[in-house]
């Protein structure tokens, strides 16, 4: 019983680390820029399939493939922000139509992937998929540990970028007060464009992590919508440490639910957290 509990918590923490990789892009776009990018999970699945293609056809390691795809996702994100800005943000219509726009993108990406790859589950091969490390009784599967480390490095680098570089600080400034930025003669939409492009770029690495952890088919992105938004809201929207804590919390809760009640119930956990947070404390755990 105790061993089971310890294993469930360790697995939950590893899972939570991976959830941080999935949510960090949304913490940037939704938390800081106030762009409710519903399509974020769809971009992660797109990332998974690009990594899959690179891995199967060219034998590239999944994590390396994720890094190789970063520029492509950056350009994609930049293009989507341009459309979003000119069609919705500039007109002040982001609420209804912007949401419908992202919902449409989510749907188009999913159906397009189904048309190209079919509905079969796809997986990658890498030396670290299979073996496990053992610390005492706790099992650390490498296919969970590698995504965990990739995720922590990615979140850490982004945090450094935001707090140390000029552009990073400008992104933080936009998230706080973009009128003030205009008065400093900086165009907020240029900074927002960079930030949104980075947020989509994280989907490439998150997609690599996802396909290392589990086989992927086009429609599993939907399972992540509730999860990523729950994590970002629970984490207090823009804060990375808050998001990391929330991701770990939800990871552990899901892992405990899966161990003691069965894995088919775990999608309900994140939703429960989301509703509770919205009802009781919309500012999140570490909200401003």
């Amino acid at each position, binding site marked *: 019983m105790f061993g089971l509990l310890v294993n469930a918590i360790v697995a939950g923490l590893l899972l939570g680390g991976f959830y941080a990789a999935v949510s960090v892009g949304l913490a940037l776009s939704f938390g800081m820029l106030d762009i*409710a990018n*519903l399509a974020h999970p769809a971009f992660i699945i797109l990332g998974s399939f690009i990594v899959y293609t690179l891995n199967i056809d060219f034998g590239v390691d999944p994590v390396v493939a994720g890094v190789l795809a970063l520029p492509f996702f950056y350009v994609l994100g930049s293009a989507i922000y341009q*459309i979003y800005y000119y*069609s*919705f943000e500039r*007109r002040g*219509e982001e*609420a*209804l*139509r912007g*949401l*419908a*726009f992202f*919902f*449409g*993108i989510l*749907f*188009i990406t*999913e*159906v*397009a992937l*189904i*048309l190209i790859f079919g509905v079969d589950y796809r997986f990658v091969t890498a030396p670290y998929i299979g073996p496990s490390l053992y610390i005492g009784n706790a099992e650390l599967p490498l296919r969970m540990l590698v995504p965990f480390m990739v995720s922590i490095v990615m979140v850490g680098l982004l945090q450094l970028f935001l707090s140390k570089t000029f552009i990073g600080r400008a992104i933080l400034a936009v998230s706080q007060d973009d009128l003030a930025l205009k008065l400093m003669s900086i165009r907020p939409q240029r900074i927002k464009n960079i930030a949104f492009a980075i947020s989509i770029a994280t989907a490439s690495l998150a997609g690599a992590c996802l396909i290392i952890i589990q086989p992927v088919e086009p*429609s599993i992105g*939907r*399972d992540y*919508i*509730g999860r990523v*938004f*729950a994590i970002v*809201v629970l984490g207090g929207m823009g804060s990375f440490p808050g998001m990391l804590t929330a991701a770990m919390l939800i990871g552990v809760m899901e892992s405990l639910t899966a161990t003691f009640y069965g894995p*088919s*119930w775990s*999608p*309900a956990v*994140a*939703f429960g957290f*989301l*509703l509770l947070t*919205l*009802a009781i404390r*919309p500012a999140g755990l570490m909200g401003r």
Partner: protein
Amino acid sequence: MPYVPTRYFCLIVALVTIAIAFASRLATNDYFFFAGYVVLQYVVMATAWNILGGYTGYVNFGTAGFFAIGAYSAVVMHKLFEPPLIASIVVGGFMAGLVGLGMGYLTLRLRGVFFAIATLALAIVLQTLVTNWDFVGGARGVYIIRPETGPFGHPYIQYLFVLMLALSAVAICIARAIEHSKLGYGLATIRDDELAAEAAGVPTLRLKLIATVLSGALMGMAGAPLPYYVTYLDPSSGFNLAFAVNSIAMPLIGGTSSWLGPLIGAVLLATIQQIATVTISSALNLLIVGVIMVAFVTIAPNGILGLFERGVRARRRPAEKEAA
């Protein structure tokens, strides 16, 4: 368009409905009823979505969830007491309205975006619940035996068609009645500026809750006859994302400002899809709907109605100049 009081409007809708019902007797092919049912179902769904989405400006992405609540309520009712279908429709509407009330109470006090996210997640969680619930068939699905004939001795599919026709008429009358009522004006102020509405004394939360419950209940009612229509229902077809995409795309393409927009969008899009599913694959067909929706939202935000009104205005302007 001249103003028609709601009473007369409903009378006209009732007459048109009866006329369509009798005209459908001329159809000799059962396929007409099968296809017509789907088109009418989307008329109800699109109109219901628009009560919250178009009039109030709150986006509901969980339409498939509300729809499936209705469908699965009917399955439960059928398994428990095999009641007449109309009773199942009422119960399905009630259950969906109840879920709408609960969700709305938790999330409608916040910004609209949180409501939208919560509805999207709701559909997924409801699907998890139904998949784990063996009484309604779980992941394996459930078979419902469709009776041979309806209560008036016609083939059952014709009965379903007429029921859905009546539901569409009810939905359109409700939507139109809201537009020209105190409720509708209240909802419009929420859409345009919620803070100002609150300051002016509009009971925003209560109005939003009424709109959510009405919209959810109509979706549940549209879903209740589904098990009898398909005769085999499993979670992935009941919660099909196509329902969600279509019932959002239709009002946005038709135009969200009045009852006419969802009607135009639903009839147009659903008819095209009925033809296209036969000729091309259904996945490609959905891809096209998604692309059209994104195109309309970015390029023609007021839908077909908006394009039409702009055309009329552009034509009128030179005439006015001549008169002056």
